[in-house]
């Protein structure tokens, strides 16, 4: 057994280059003759463009070109697309307005793209942008999620009356209403899932480079899925056919979903590179990222649970309004629908669920997938609902959850999902033990003595990862299939290159994927190189999001590896002159049973390429295999997080005292990397629950557009995480992997708000629970009042 195989905490091989400054990010790349783009953006949330005068700007020093929506339209460059069709409950398709990469007649949010100035240097582009004169006719803006669809609100798109993109629903309404009619107890809650700005460490960037000699375009871009970018830029936006368009996503410094989407900026850079006959580079600054990267969450929800006399949940009813922003981003429509409501069963056996979702336009930045994408929103709903129900019924929240847990698998929920496997009770019991839940009462009493309010909160989350069976998502409206591809190229001396359609932007694929190859082929990890992020090298792929790279991407590699081993076995049999079915392959050695004949993997590779010792009429030379893997089902990671907080009611400061996370991710390839994913996810979830809030004022101005006003979690906000694992391997993929990339961000907000509300003794606090909000809420805390 090698020390670099599956289950080993191998140190990340890519980190050496990242931490020594040798990464190769898009902004590290320069092309000969490169120019710089600066975007003229709308300062208004909603306005008609009366005129754009570029005359003075065009004469400014260094200006190479100024382009507007008019030129874009004249070149027949299509608008940005939303790739998932959602139908309203009346059967009508969603109502989407056009989304040009440069605004044509109207601007619809602050930061919307009005023109691009391209110059010899970035400063010249920026200075010239100051000289572009845009005359606006300013309109009132629609900003608020809850009221956007009310009659009389300013209309964002004429195509979507009352700003309504869709009125979608899922589940059986009548059966659910009947469950409520018979309920012994009904719990009702109102929630806001606060809007977030993604804030990856590396801002977005793009270089468009048109080669006049060959007529090919190359786009360097910060993408989580370069092949999807190429597909969209070719087939829908119409930049160039796929064979004339190469997309390279080199090292990418984090994405969290925000780099899945095909944005205006890269579209404009690649198109403009032909217009100005020079490479065009754009690098986003941090405030532009706040304005224009697709935001996350932003739901307003009313939820109810019906509970029978024995304490079993018999029905859940949810009504959500989801803010989609000013335009539909690439996957915006699917996030608050199919990635959200099918998770409302949580870990519970709930026979009836009905959920309605209204997707609304507002004059704000587009909203799309952000770490967890729909599942954090669903978990926040069901885990707040269950917690409040337990409190209302006077039951222990852990015991009430276990009373309602699904205990037999497979389990079909009333909202699409069929959970293959899990052991929710095991995670809960382990978490209770690790968190010393029994000792909580004593710790609470000690805090009370010191004038502090202590609370504990649970989140028993489930997520659907490894998106997804292509046929299934196709039937739900997805415009693409969600398989993954891999190609394993064995070199003559036995080193291996693996080309994968997954994309690594922080996940550590160069390590974990190599571990799988090392494990299966029995070769040292140093002999394996993982290649990704270039459409000229990897033929096709669907990219990385939804915790799919392990469950889907590695399954594709596994499938290709099995083909390689089969071919190598054929070669080895021919060379050793033994029947193929007598050969065993273990730890890198092909051994003929019952003989002393054996060959190492590298020797077989060499023989495959020299092709001296077999009949090449019967056996093709070479050793290279590819595979496409389409998952059979989603995977269902689950777990229990327990947060324990202490609030100082005099200052409103909430200290996260303890955090226990017990997760079931199925097979772990690299436990250290998995634990890192859990840590990062929890940090983001704590950020959402306590610190991060995106604020647009009534006129649609983003007033939290920098780190001065938008608070990110820092090390001192976080406790040392207590992480445990249980394992029920996924039954629907060959490796048993479930996925771990989003779990922490999904679980954490509910656990933390449950802990804070437990400490306060009432439910009236919204995210982010900042010190000011907690201080206000603590004034009406029955625990505080009793103490006084």
């Amino acid at each position: 057994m090698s020390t670099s195989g599956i289950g080993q905490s191998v140190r990340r091989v890519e980190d050496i280059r990242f931490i020594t400054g040798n990464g190769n990010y898009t902004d590290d790349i320069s092309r000969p003759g490169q120019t710089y783009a600066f975007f003229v953006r709308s300062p208004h949330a909603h306005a008609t463009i009366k005129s754009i005068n570029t005359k003075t700007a065009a004469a400014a020093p260094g200006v190479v070109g100024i382009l507007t929506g008019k030129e874009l339209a004249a070149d027949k460059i299509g608008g940005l697309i939303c790739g998932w069709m959602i139908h309203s409950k009346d059967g009508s398709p969603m109502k989407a307005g056009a989304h040009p990469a440069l605004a044509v007649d109207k601007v619809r949010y602050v930061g919307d793209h009005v023109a691009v100035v391209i110059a010899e240097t970035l400063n010249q582009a920026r200075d010239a942008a100051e000289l572009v004169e845009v005359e606006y006719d300013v309109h009132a803006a629609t900003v608020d999620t809850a009221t956007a669809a009310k009659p009389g609100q300013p209309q964002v798109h004429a195509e979507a009356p009352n700003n309504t993109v869709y009125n979608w629903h899922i589940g059986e309404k009548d059966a659910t209403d009947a469950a409520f009619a018979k309920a012994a107890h009904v719990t009702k809650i109102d929630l806001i899932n606060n809007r977030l700005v993604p804030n990856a460490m590396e801002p977005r960037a793009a270089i468009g480079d048109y080669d006049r000699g060959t007529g090919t375009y190359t786009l360097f871009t910060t993408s989580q899925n370069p092949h999807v970018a190429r597909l969209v830029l070719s087939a829908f936006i119409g930049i160039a056919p796929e064979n004339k368009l190469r997309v390279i996503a080199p090292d990418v410094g984090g994405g969290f979903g925000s780099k899945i989407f095909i944005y205006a900026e890269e579209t404009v850079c690649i198109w403009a590179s032909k217009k100005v006959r020079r490479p065009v580079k754009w690098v986003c600054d941090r405030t532009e990222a706040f304005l224009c990267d697709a935001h996350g969450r932003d739901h307003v929800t009313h939820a109810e649970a019906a509970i029978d006399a024995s304490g079993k949940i018999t029905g859940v009813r949810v009504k959500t309004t989801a803010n989609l922003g000013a335009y539909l981003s690439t996957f915006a429509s699917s996030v608050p629908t199919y990635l959200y409501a099918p998770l409302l069963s949580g870990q519970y056996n709930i026979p009836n669920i009905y959920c309605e979702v209204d997707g609304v336009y507002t004059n704000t930045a587009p909203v799309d997938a952000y770490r967890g994408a729909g599942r954090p929103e669903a978990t926040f709903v069901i885990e707040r609902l269950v917690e409040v129900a337990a409190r209302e019924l006077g039951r222990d929240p852990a015991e009430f959850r276990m009373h309602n847990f699904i205990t037999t698998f497979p389990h079909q929920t009333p909202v699409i999902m069929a959970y293959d496997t899990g052991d929710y009770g095991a995670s809960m019991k382990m978490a209770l033990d690790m968190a010393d839940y029994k000792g909580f009462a004593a710790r609470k009493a000690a805090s009370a003595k010191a004038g502090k309010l202590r609370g504990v909160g649970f989140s028993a989350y489930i997520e659907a990862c490894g998106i997804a069976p292509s046929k299934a998502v196709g039937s739900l409206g997805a415009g693409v299939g969600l398989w993954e591809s891999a190609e394993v190229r064995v070199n003559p001396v036995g080193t291996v290159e693996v080309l994968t359609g997954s994309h690594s932007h922080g996940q550590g694929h160069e390590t974990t994927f190599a571990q799988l190859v090392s494990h299966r082929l029995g070769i040292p990890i140093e002999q394996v190189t993982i290649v990704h992020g270039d459409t000229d090298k990897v033929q096709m792929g669907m990219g990385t999001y939804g915790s799919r790279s392990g469950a889907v991407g590695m399954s594709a590699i596994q499938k290709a590896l099995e083909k390689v081993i089969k071919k190598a076995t054929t070669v080895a049999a021919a060379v050793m002159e033994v029947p193929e079915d007598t050969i065993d392959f273990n730890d890198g050695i092909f051994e003929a049973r019952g003989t002393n004949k054996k060959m190492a993997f590298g020797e077989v590779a060499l023989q495959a390429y020299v092709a001296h010792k077999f009949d090449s009429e019967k056996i093709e030379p070479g050793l290279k295999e590819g595979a496409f893997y389409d998952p059979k089902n989603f995977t269902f990671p689950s777990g229990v997080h327990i947060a324990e907080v202490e609030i100082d009611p005099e200052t409103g400061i909430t200290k996260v005292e303890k955090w226990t996370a017990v997760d079931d991710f199925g097979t772990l390839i690299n436990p250290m990397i998995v634990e890192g994913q859990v840590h990062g996810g929890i940090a983001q979830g704590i950020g959402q629950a306590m610190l991060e809030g995106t604020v647009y004022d009534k006129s649609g101005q983003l007033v939290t557009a920098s780190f001065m006003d938008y608070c990110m979690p820092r090390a001192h906000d976080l406790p040392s995480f207590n992480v445990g694992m249980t394992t029920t391997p996924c039954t629907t993929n060959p490796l048993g992997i479930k996925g771990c990339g989003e779990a922490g961000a999904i679980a954490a907000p509910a656990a933390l708000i449950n802990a804070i509300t437990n400490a306060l003794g009432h439910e009236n606090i919204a995210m982010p629970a900042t010190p000011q909000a907690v201080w206000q809420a603590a004034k009406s805390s029955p625990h505080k009042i009793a103490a006084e």
Partner: protein
Amino acid sequence: MSMTMNGEVQLPAPRAVVWEKLNDPKVLAACIPGCESLEQDSPTEMRAAVKVKVGPVSARFKGRVELQNIVPEVSYRIQGEGEGGIAGFAKGGADVRLEDGDFGSTKLFYDVQATVGGKIAQLGGRLINSVAKKNADDFFQNFTAVITGDKIVG
């Protein structure tokens, strides 16, 4: 985002003098902090270019200013809007009212309502009120210097 500010200053000159200076574009140009030009198009309309710095954002605002609701020697409203290029925009107005003060002085009351947008709102939001207050203070300090003759406007 919107911003409001009001205040009261004591000016060492009678109302008639204050009123005259308040309607003199040359005086206003000399007193408005960062004013690069102020040109009169009509007795009540002016065009201005003003350089403003709010925290990390520095911008040259170009815009129109109009005097409205004029009650000579008593009150008017200055209404204006300006574009600051990529820094954003500002629009709003100030109601100005004069009252006789003690010993031949004048009390001036001002009440400003403004909205700003774009980069200046995104980055300067928290600083706008203090910048506006400082600009108002600087304006009246300059204005006082003009009416006392400490500052000559030619």
